[in-house]
C-alpha cells in the first residue's frame, strides 16, 4: 500500500538562467529546522519569526564557507502559499550560486519539489480549488503568449460545465440501473440494453472530443515537439540555428530531458514549437553512440512531427535511406528538407516519392519561409483542436479523464456481454472520475437519487 509522505520540499522558483536575483522556495514541516542549520542572520532579530525578512548568509555547516549572502522571508502555516511553513530565499542570480544553495538545502533534509508541488500542497491544504490550481500552474509555466491565453481560457468554467453535463448524463443512467439492481420488485422499468448502449456510445463520442481537446491543450501547453532526423552531418544543427536565428528574442533554452538532445522553442504561426536536434542516425559504431541513437529513437517516438534532413549536395547514402524508411514508418506528420540548396543538387526527387522535399540553404538563408509555411500547414492538418476548443488539464485530471473514458468504453462495449452489476461498477467509475476532472465531488450517492426519482415501495 502506498503511504504518502509529507516531506519538506525546495525548488528554484524563478526561471533558469542568469538574472539579478533568484528565488528558492522551501515548504513543509522542517522548513525552519533546515534553515536554522544553514542560514546565519546578520541582525539581532531572533530567527525565525513569522512573516519577517532577514538578511544573512547561507553557509556550508561543515566548513563554514559562505555560499551566498541573501534575503530570507518567512511564512508560517497555515497562512502561506502552500498552507505549510514556508520560506523564500533570495540569492544572487548566478546559476552556480543558486544551484549550490539548493544543493545545501537538499543535503540537509529538503527534497527536490516536483513540478507543481507547491501549488498541489496549496490545494491539499484548502488554499485553492482544483481548476484554480491548474490555471495557476499553467500560467506560471506559460512561456509564450498563446499558452498564457490558453491558461486564461480555463478560468471561465466552460470545460467544467461540460464535464458536469456529461457526468450528469452518465449518472442518470447509473441511477436507473442501480434502482433496478437494488429494488428489483419496484416496477422500475427494466434497462433496455440496446438503448443504453446507444446512449452510452453517444456520450462516449462527446467525451472523446473533449479528451482530444485536452490532448491538444496538453500538446500546445507543452510545445509541439518536432524532431530533426538525419544522418550525421546532413546539416541538422545548422538548419536548427537557421530556424531560430530569425527571432532570437523568443528563444528560450530548455534543459533537455536527455543531455545529448538539444531543444529550442520558437513560434510557428501562433503555435509554440520545440525543435529537437537529435544525434545522427546510422548503424552504431560503439556503445556510446548506440545510446545516443537509442535516445534519438525515443525523441522521434515522442515527437508530434518529424523533419527529415538530407544533404542535397550528395547522393543519398544507405544511412539516408534508413532515415527515409524511418520517416515513412513513423505514422507521424513528416516534412523532408534538402539542405545545402546553394550547392549543385545530387539527389533526385523520385527518391523521396510521397515525401517531396523542400529545398533550403541554411548557409545562404534560403527557403525558411517555405519551411515555416510547411510546418504551419502540417500543424493545421494534424487534427489539433483550435485554440478556442483546447482544454488544459493537470496531470491528475488527465489521469482521471483517461480512467473515465476507459470505464465508459468498457461499459459501452460490455453491455449485453457483462452482467448489469458489473456495468454499474463501470458507470460509477466513470461518474466518479469525471467528478475528479472538474474537482466537483468524488462521492456518487446513487441511493438518495434513486429515492428522488423513483417511487420505491415494495
Amino acid at each position, binding site marked *: *500500500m502506498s*503511504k*504518502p*509522505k*509529507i516531506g519538506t520540499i525546495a525548488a528554484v522558483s524563478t526561471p533558469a538562467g542568469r538574472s539579478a536575483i533568484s528565488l528558492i522556495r522551501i515548504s513543509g*514541516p522542517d522548513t525552519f529546522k533546515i534553515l536554522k542549520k544553514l542560514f546565519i542572520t546578520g541582525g539581532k532579530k531572533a530567527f525565525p519569526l513569522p512573516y519577517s525578512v532577514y538578511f544573512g548568509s547561507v553557509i556550508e555547516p561543515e566548513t563554514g564557507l559562505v555560499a551566498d549572502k541573501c534575503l530570507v522571508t518567512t511564512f508560517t*502555516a497555515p497562512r502561506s502559499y502552500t*498552507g*505549510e511553513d514556508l520560506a523564500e530565499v533570495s540569492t544572487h542570480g548566478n546559476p552556480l550560486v543558486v544551484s549550490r544553495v539548493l544543493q545545501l538545502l537538499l543535503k540537509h533534509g529538503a527534497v527536490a519539489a516536483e513540478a507543481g508541488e507547491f501549488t498541489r*500542497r496549496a490545494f*491539499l*491544504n*484548502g488554499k485553492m480549488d482544483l481548476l484554480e490550481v491548474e490555471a495557476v500552474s499553467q500560467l506560471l509555466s506559460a512561456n509564450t503568449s498563446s499558452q498564457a491565453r490558453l491558461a486564461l481560457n480555463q478560468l471561465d468554467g466552460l470545460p467544467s460545465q461540460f464535464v458536469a453535463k456529461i457526468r450528469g448524463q452518465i449518472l442518470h443512467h447509473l441511477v436507473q440501473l*442501480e434502482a*433496478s*439492481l*437494488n*429494488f*428489483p*420488485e*419496484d*416496477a422500475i422499468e427494466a434497462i433496455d440494453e440496446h438503448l443504453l448502449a446507444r446512449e452510452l456510445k453517444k456520450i462516449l463520442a462527446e467525451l472523446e472530443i473533449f479528451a482530444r481537446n485536452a490532448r491538444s491543450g496538453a500538446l500546445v501547453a507543452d510545445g509541439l515537439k518536432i524532431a530533426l532526423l538525419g544522418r550525421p552531418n546532413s546539416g541538422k544543427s545548422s538548419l536548427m540555428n537557421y530556424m531560430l536565428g530569425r527571432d532570437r528574442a523568443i528563444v528560450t533554452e530548455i534543459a533537455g530531458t536527455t543531455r545529448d538532445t538539444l531543444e529550442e522553442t520558437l513560434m510557428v504561426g501562433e503555435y509554440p514549437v520545440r525543435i529537437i536536434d537529435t544525434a545522427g542516425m546510422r548503424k552504431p559504431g560503439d556503445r556510446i553512440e548506440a545510446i545516443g541513437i537509442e535516445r534519438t529513437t525515443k525523441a522521434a517516438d515522442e515527437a508530434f512531427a518529424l523533419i527529415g534532413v538530407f544533404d542535397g549536395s550528395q547522393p543519398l547514402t544507405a544511412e539516408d535511406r534508413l532515415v527515409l524508411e524511418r520517416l515513412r514508418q513513423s505514422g507521424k506528420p513528416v516534412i523532408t528538407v534538402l539542405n545545402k540548396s546553394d550547392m549543385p543538387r545530387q539527389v533526385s526527387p523520385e527518391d523521396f516519392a510521397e515525401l517531396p522535399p523542400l529545398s533550403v540553404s541554411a548557409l545562404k538563408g534560403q527557403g525558411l519561409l517555405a519551411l515555416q509555411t510547411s510546418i504551419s500547414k502540417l500543424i493545421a492538418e494534424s487534427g489539433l483542436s483550435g485554440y478556442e476548443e483546447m482544454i488544459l488539464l493537470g496531470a491528475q485530471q488527465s489521469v482521471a479523464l483517461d480512467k473515465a473514458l476507459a470505464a465508459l468504453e468498457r461499459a459501452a462495449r460490455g453491455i449485453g*456481454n*457483462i*452482467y*448489469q*452489476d*458489473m456495468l454499474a*461498477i463501470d458507470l460509477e*467509475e466513470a461518474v466518479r472520475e469525471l467528478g475528479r476532472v472538474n474537482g466537483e465531488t468524488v462521492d456518487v450517492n*446513487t*441511493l438518495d437519487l*434513486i*429515492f428522488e426519482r423513483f*417511487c*420505491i*415501495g*415494495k
Partner: protein
Amino acid sequence: MSQKKEYAVIVVGAGHAGCEAALAAARLGAETLLITMNISTVALMPCNPSIGGPGKGHLVREIGALGGEMPRCIDETCVQMKWLNTSKGPAVRSRRAQADKYLYRQRMLQTLFATPNLTLRQGHVTGLLVESGRIKGVKLETGLVFACEKLILTSGTYLNSRIILGRATWPGGPQNQSPAIGLSDSLSAAGVRLRRLQTATPPRILKSSVDINMMTELPGDIDAGGFLWENRLRRYEKQIPCYLTFTDERSVEAVRRNLSESPLVLENITDDGPKHCPSIDRKIIKFPDMVKHQVFVEPEGWDSQELYLQGLTTGMPPSAQQDIVGSVAGLENAVILRYGYAIEYDALAPGQIRKTMESRVIEGFYTAGQLNGTSGYEEAAGQGLIAGINAVLALKKQAPYWPSRTRSYLGVLVDDLSTWEKPEPYRITPGHAEFRLTLRDDSAERRLAADGFRIGLVDPERFSTIFAWSARIEGEIARLSTLSLLPSGEARERLARLATGDLKKPASGAELLQRPGVTYNDVMDLLQQPENTRLSAVDEVYALETEIKYRGYADREAEKIVQTSFLERIRLPLEISDHRLNLLSEQSRQILSSCRFDDLSQMVRKHCLTRSEIAILLSVLSEDGDSQERHEETR
C-alpha cells in the same frame, strides 16, 4: 426454587434482534436472561411476511455463516422461496422467502426454550440500573430487579410507542401489543439521547374476499435453495404463490378524497420514517402523476386466512382504508380484518453506538434493531447477533468483533449505523456496499465461517465441512490457472465448435472461463479433463464460475479494499503526540481524539479529513504501523 436474580447477559425484547442476541450469548456460554413483554409474540413479524431480498438476503446468509438462527428458522417455516435479480448478476442476486409468520414464531420459541444457559421470562422493563457510567441491571414494572454484567436492549418499535390512525391516536405497540413505558425516561436520565421515528403497516384482508383472477400470480422457485449453507441445495416442492395487482385512477381518487385525514396532512406524527416503504398517501403526494402503483398480495402463512397488502401501507382512518383497498383491481370486495396503522416510537439519536453495538454513553450497554434506527427484520437480527457476540467477548475480556465492511454486509451495516446521520431509518441494500462484487451471496461462508468458528458459534464439525467445501472450490480455482490450452489445430477446432474466439497463444483454464458464454464444463472439455476430476456439485461450480468470471472486476476493488482495511485497523480515539499532527486542522485533531468515530476509515468516509490530512496521518501512522499491527495481533 427461588428465582435467579443475576445474569451475565440480559437481553430485553424478544423480537428478531433480541432472539439472535440471546441465542448468541447463551450459545457462547454466558448465563443469559431474555425478558419479553409477551411470550406469545416472541419473534413476531408485525409487518411484512417476508425475509430476504437484495442486501437483506445477503445479511441472512451471513448470519447463518456466523452461526446465527434466522436462516435456519426461515428455511423451515417459509411458504415460498424465490430468487431475485437472477439475470442482473451474481453480486445482486438474492433469495427472498415468504414466511409463515405463525410457524416462524413457534419455531423460534422452541429454539429459545431448547438452548442451554438461556432463560426466558415475561416482564416489562421500566428502568436501567446504571452506576458510574456502567450498566448494572434492569428494573421491572413489578418491582423485580435483575442484575447483569452486560445488557442488550432491543426495544424495536415499542419504546414509548403511539399508534396513529387518522386523527385517532393512543399509546400502543405494534399489533395491539402494549407499549414500553418508563424506559425512555430511564435512558434519558442515564444520558442517552432519543429521537422519534415512525413507520406504518398496511391493512390485512380476508383471503376469501379477494378475486385473484384479476391479479398476476407470482410463484416461487422450486430450486432456490435455503438461506442456511446446509440447505443450499434444498428443493421447495410445495409453495404458495403471491399475487400482484395495481392501483389505478380510482385508487388515486380514493386517496385524494381522504387525504385530509392522512397523518401526513394532519401532521400529527413525525416525518422521519423509512424512505423505502412510503405510505400510499405519501406516494400519491410525492408522485402526483403516477397512477399505477404495485400492490403485492402476500399470504401470512400456510393456513392463514389473512393476506398482507404490500404497497398499501397507511395510517389513514378505517373508512379511508376501506375506500382505498376497495379501489384496487381484485380487491373491490375485500374485507379488512386488521386495519393498517402508523406507529411512532423512541429510537436512539445518531452517533451513540459503536460498531460493536455497544453504547458510546453507557459501558456494558448494547442496543440492536429498530431502536438503533434501522428498519427490517434482517437488519435487526444482524445487529442482535453482533451485539450478543460482543457482549460475551467483552465479558471474557477478549478483543471485540468488528466485522469489516470490506468483508461483509454485516460489516457495512454496523459501520454505517455507527456513523449514520440521516433522519430516516437505515435499510441495507447492495447500494450501501461499495465492495459488493466481493460480498456475494455465494461467498458468505468463505468470507465468514472462519470468524464464526473462531468466535465459537460455528462448531468444529460444521466448520470442517464448510472448510472442505470451500477448499474444493478454491483448489479448483487454483488448478484452473495452472492448466493451459495450447493453440493446436485440434484445440482451435474445439473452440470453434463452442462458437468462441480463436486461440493465438496458450491460454489458462481461468482465461478461457473468462470468455463470455463459456462454462466450467466447456473449459474442462477443452482441456480434456476426465469427468471424475471435475467439480460436480451445482453450487460449487457456480461459486467457481462466478469467482473467475468476476475476477477482472473484483480485482479493481482489491486495492480499495486493502486501503479501507488499513484505515479500519486504526482505531480511534487516537493519542496525538506527534508534533507533525499539528499540520491537521484543530477540528480534525479534536475528532481524532474524541469518541465520535470507531476508526479512521469512518472519518475518511465522512469527509472529516482533507486529502492532505489523510496523507499526513498515513505517513505519520505508517511509521509506527508495525507496532500498531503487533498490537492488533495480541488483542
